């Protein structure tokens, strides 16, 4: 294991782990805010209990999201110092704006919300959780502005012989089309995550036929709406993003589809076992013309293949390997899209139940609704895996390769990298187990009735 591999593993591990918690923070903050608004508007005690119940789970999740986020803020300098030098002029800007505009707001008003139940008028208290939700959303936005620069750089200039690109147009950075593909996708992903989280826990309680049925029914109602709207938006945004990537990162699409040669019209792979060394299929089930249709909304149109793109990039950027890991890209895309399709079906099922007001489930329906909790996590993680792995070998597309972003080995040794990776793996594993058990404890304990 060389230092580059260790640093990449550490970054992937810490960022995916961080993103276990972020979507739920995004979605559940909005969900909790809606419930508290219902409490303020109607004055019904039920909504206060629901706010406290889901708010508790929100906080247990939030804590780990925050502390793992702090790690990200330092890690660019620690393990990727040459990357930090190279992109600081551009990438640092949205990060700084994020802390000033979003992180401060989120943390300060969360403290006010947690401790302010008795101190603030109801409306102000409800407003503070809305501000937290707004802060989290803004935070996600600015991080995606930064990430989009790595995917598809805009708004910069790089003089011949210069050591780094420099920002020349902040509007081009913010209105990078990639941002506006990614942001709705990620935000809707958060809504979906919260939706299924609420559906799963509510369904579990409804199956148990305990007290407070009405509270869980209301939760399920809100959760089903969240999950349905979120899933529809996430799929549409994802589809649109894929079409956009065809123009900006065609290699990522080709890898996600395991499309070796350019095809017109292009077929869509349902299941492929490929030979990554020989760049060919071992076994493949394909639907003719479907990929062209997905790409261009028409059964005509060329989708460029991996081998062709490799040749084009060699001409453009010089000799080298411009192919990401095909296996990772292909399967992460399939897991994400598969989970998305399943979620749409289950969201429809939940919505159907809610509209029919039938809250007694058969064991199969109950199990389906409960276990659907896991689907968003599967989709979120595999989606990021595709976004980041599919960008390889680039760290900043077309400008900097991953291997050139690493801190020099003379500064951060392989031993130090191994220590930090081991520390993060052990610490995060312990955090995950602890957080999960606490979540479970409070989810099982259920809504507290009467005070």
């Amino acid at each position: 294991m060389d230092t580059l591999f260790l640093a990449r593993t550490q970054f992937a591990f810490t960022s995916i782990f961080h993103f276990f918690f972020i979507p739920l923070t995004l979605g559940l903050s909005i969900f909790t805010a809606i419930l508290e608004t219902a409490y303020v508007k109607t004055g019904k005690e039920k909504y206060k209990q629901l706010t406290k119940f889901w708010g508790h789970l929100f906080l247990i999740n939030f804590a780990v999201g925050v502390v793992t986020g702090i790690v990200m803020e330092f890690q660019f300098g620690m393990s990727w110092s040459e990357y930090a030098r190279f992109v600081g002029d551009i990438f640092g800007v949205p990060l700084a704006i994020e802390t000033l505009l979003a992180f401060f707001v989120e943390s300060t008003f969360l403290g006010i919300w947690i401790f302010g139940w008795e101190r603030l008028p109801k409306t102000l208290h409800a407003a503070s959780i809305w501000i937290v939700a707004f802060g989290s959303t803004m935070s996600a936005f600015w991080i995606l502005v930064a990430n989009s620069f790595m995917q598809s750089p805009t708004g910069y200039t790089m003089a011949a012989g210069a050591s780094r690109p420099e920002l020349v147009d902040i509007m081009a950075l913010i209105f990078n089309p990639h941002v506006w593909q990614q942001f709705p996708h990620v935000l809707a992903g958060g809504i979906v995550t919260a939706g299924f989280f609420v559906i799963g826990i509510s369904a579990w309680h409804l199956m148990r036929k305990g007290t407070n049925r009405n509270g869980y029914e209301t939760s399920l109602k809100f959760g089903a709406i969240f999950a349905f709207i979120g899933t529809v938006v996430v799929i549409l945004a994802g589809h649109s993003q894929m079409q956009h990537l065809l123009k900006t990162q065609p290699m990522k699409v080709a890898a996600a589809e395991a499309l070796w040669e350019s095809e017109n019209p292009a077929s869509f792979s349902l299941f492929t076992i490929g030979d990554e060394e020989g760049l060919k299929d071992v076994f493949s089930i394909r639907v003719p013309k479907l990929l062209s249709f997905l790409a261009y909304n028409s059964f005509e149109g060329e989708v460029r293949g991996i081998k062709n793109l490799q040749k084009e990039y060699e001409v453009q950027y010089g000799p080298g390997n411009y192919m990401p890991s095909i296996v990772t890209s292909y399967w992460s895309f399939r897991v994400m899209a598969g989970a998305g399709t399943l979620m749409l079906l289950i969201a429809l099922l939940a919505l159907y139940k809610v509209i029919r007001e039938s809250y007694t489930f058969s064991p199969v329906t109950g199990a389906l609704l409960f276990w659907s909790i896991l689907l968003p996590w599967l989709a979120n993680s595999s989606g990021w895996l595709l976004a980041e792995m599919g960008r390889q070998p680039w760290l900043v597309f077309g400008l900097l390769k991953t291997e050139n972003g690493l801190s020099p080995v003379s500064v951060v040794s392989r031993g130090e990298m191994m220590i930090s990776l081991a520390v993060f793996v052990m610490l995060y594993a312990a955090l995950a187990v602890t957080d999960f058990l606490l979540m479970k404890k409070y989810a099982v304990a259920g809504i507290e009735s009467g005070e």
Partner: protein
Amino acid sequence: MDLQTLWFIIITFLFIGFFVLEGFDFGVGILLPFISRDDRQRRTIINTIGPFWDGNEVWLITATSGMFAAFPDWYATLFSALYLPVLIMLVALIFRGVAFEFRSKRDNPAWRSFWDWSIFGGSVVPALLWGIALANFIRGVPVDGSMHYTGGLLNLLNPYALLCGITATLIFTLHGAIFLTLKTTGVLHERAMEFAKKLWAPATLLCILFMAYTTIETDLFRHLGVNPGIIPVFSVLALISVIFLLQKNAAGWAFAMTSVAIAFSTITIFMGLYPRLLVSSLNPPWSLTIYNSSSSAYSLGLVSVVALVFLPIIIMYQGWSYWVFRQRVTGDSELEY
């Protein structure tokens, strides 16, 4: 004034915010195991900083992201050089951050004790490490001509830096003890007062010792970017005044004075550094300065506007949050954590 200098001032300001605000909640965290007698008292102590600690920590995060945006080379050189210390700080902050949320979620005494000690460790370790880091900024670290650190971990752990680490930790603890006297009643209030009075002498003595050591160990008072003049003297005088204010039961003023002492010490160090960011102990011209490490004028100007517009707003709403929770936390209040 050029944009680089403006950003140097903004980052100094962000560090002052971090040290003054997170300083007292580090102090409260450090005192937690020693000042309390039972679980109810521990919860009361934690609740004095409960609404604030997270917002206070963002001052550090913002300082860091400001370094990244304004002086990328500083950010890159510093955090790769301090790889293991930063890792330790992150681990400490992780334990501390989740401890506030986790500790009261189970009744088991061993569970609570574990997280209480996490809060202690998570407070003392970053305080110590930032003291050590700051001293090394001005003492100089082995940085070569291409802005890469050539030293090891042991270069950072010199007596001078360790003295700074211990001094900073003691001053934060004093600062936290005084904060506790302001936010508690009864027995806790009295005990916090006792601790504050006991901590005053060693904290003040070490601070003076550190200033003296600084004149020997660094070029801070000889080779000056900007002469800090009587600012360090004010810092020491503010610290000396604390004991008299405490004896007169003017804890509010004492807290103001520890805040002044912390702020002025930070200003002294940064003024001494200016225009350097990280002094090279190998060859002075290899030092990182605000000019050889900065972003372009466009980026600097842009983040300047954002910072100058939003920092006053941040100060306003954070100030408001302190006003909302201005009452003392008593054992009778509803204890959320």
